C-alpha cells in the first residue's frame, strides 16, 4: 500500500514538470503572436521604405523644363535647392494619387518661407501641361524627368515628397499621397523646425 502512494507521488511531480513543458509551446506561440500583432496593429506599412538618403545632400541632377512650359517655369538642378527650405515633389499627370495630394501641395506653395519645386516623372509634355493648367501649378521650378532623376533620388513610386533644409540636405521623405493630416501633423512641423 505504501509502495502505491510513493509511486503516485513521483508520478505527480514528474507530471508537473511535464505540464510546464507542455505549456512552453503555448508561451512561445503567445510571444510570437504578440510581436506579430504589434507590427500589424502599429499601422506601419511594410511596403513603405525609409529613404537611404536622409541627411544626405541632394543628389546631383539637372533636368530640363517641361517642353512648352519653359516660358512659365524653368527646369531644375541640384544648385536650385539651396538657400531656402525646399519641398521636392515627384508627380505625373498619369498618377491618380498625385491629384489627391495636389491641394496640399498647392497649400504648401502659398506658405511663406518654403520653396516648392516639382519633378515631373515620365510624363508626356502635353499631358503634363494640360494637368498643370487644369489643376494649378504650385511649383517654382519643374524638371522633366525621363526616369534617371527618380533613381538618383531613390524614388520607387509616385508620388514621393522630400523636404530639404537650407543647405540642400534631404531631411525627410514621404512616400505616397500627402494627405491633409500628413501635411498638418508631419510636414508642417518639420518645415517650421528647418526654417529656424
Amino acid at each position, binding site marked *: 500500500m505504501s509502495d502505491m502512494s510513493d509511486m503516485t507521488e513521483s508520478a505527480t511531480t514528474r507530471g508537473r514538470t511535464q505540464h510546464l513543458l507542455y505549456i512552453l509551446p503555448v508561451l512561445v506561440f503567445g510571444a510570437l503572436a504578440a510581436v506579430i500583432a504589434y507590427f500589424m496593429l502599429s499601422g506601419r506599412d511594410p*511596403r513603405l*521604405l*525609409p*529613404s*537611404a*538618403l536622409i541627411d544626405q545632400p541632394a*543628389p546631383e541632377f539637372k533636368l530640363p523644363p517641361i517642353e512648352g512650359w519653359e516660358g512659365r517655369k524653368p527646369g531644375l538642378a541640384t544648385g536650385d535647392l539651396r538657400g531656402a527650405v525646399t519641398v521636392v515633389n515627384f508627380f505625373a499627370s498619369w498618377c491618380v494619387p498625385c491629384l489627391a495630394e495636389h491641394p496640399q501641395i498647392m497649400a504648401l506653395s502659398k506658405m511663406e518661407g518654403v520653396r516648392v519645386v516639382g519633378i515631373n516623372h*515620365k510624363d508626356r509634355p502635353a499631358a503634363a501641361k494640360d494637368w498643370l493648367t487644369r489643376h494649378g501649378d504650385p511649383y517654382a521650378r519643374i524638371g522633366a524627368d525621363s*526616369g*534617371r532623376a*527618380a*533613381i*538618383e*533620388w*531613390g524614388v*520607387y*513610386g509616385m508620388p514621393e515628397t522630400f523636404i530639404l533644409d537650407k543647405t540642400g540636405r534631404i531631411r525627410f521623405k514621404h512616400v505616397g499621397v500627402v494627405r491633409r493630416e500628413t501635411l498638418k501633423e508631419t510636414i508642417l512641423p518639420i518645415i517650421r523646425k528647418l526654417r529656424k
Partner: protein
Amino acid sequence: MRLLAAILALALSAAAAQAVEPNEILKDPALEQRARAISKKLRCLVCQNQSIDDSDAGLARDLRVLVRERLSAGDSDEAVVRFVVARYGDFVLLRPPVTPATYALWFGPLLLLLLAGIGVVVFLKRRRPEAAPAAAPLDADEKKRLTALLADDGLSR
C-alpha cells in the same frame, strides 16, 4: 503522356521567359552576363519579391538599363551595387548583408537549432535511467493465472 509533355513544355518556356527586353541587352556577352548576375541580386522595389531581372515594372527596367550603363562605363560589379544601395538602401539587395541589424536574421535559425539540439540531448539523457527494467519471468503461480485468464472467453461467467 501528351499532357505531361505539354506541361513540361509550358514549364520550360515559362522558365525561359525573361523580363529583359532585346533592346536592353548589351553587345558584349561578358558584360551582359555580369549585368544579368547583378540584376538577379537587386530587388524590384515596386513588386518587392521579384528581382529587377524578373520584373516588368518600369522602375525595374530603368534599373536594368542603369546597371548596364554603369558596367559599360567601366564600373566594377561592386561599384554598381554600391551605387544602387546608396540610393535605395540595403532593402534593394535580395540577400541582406550581415550587419548588426540583421544578426538575428542570419544567426537566429542557428541559435534555434543549437537550443533544439541541447533540448534533445537533455531529454535523451534524462530518459535513459528511467527506462523500464527488463520484465522478470513469470513464476509458476502467475503462469497458471495467465493460462486461466487466456482460457476464459469472458462469456462463461
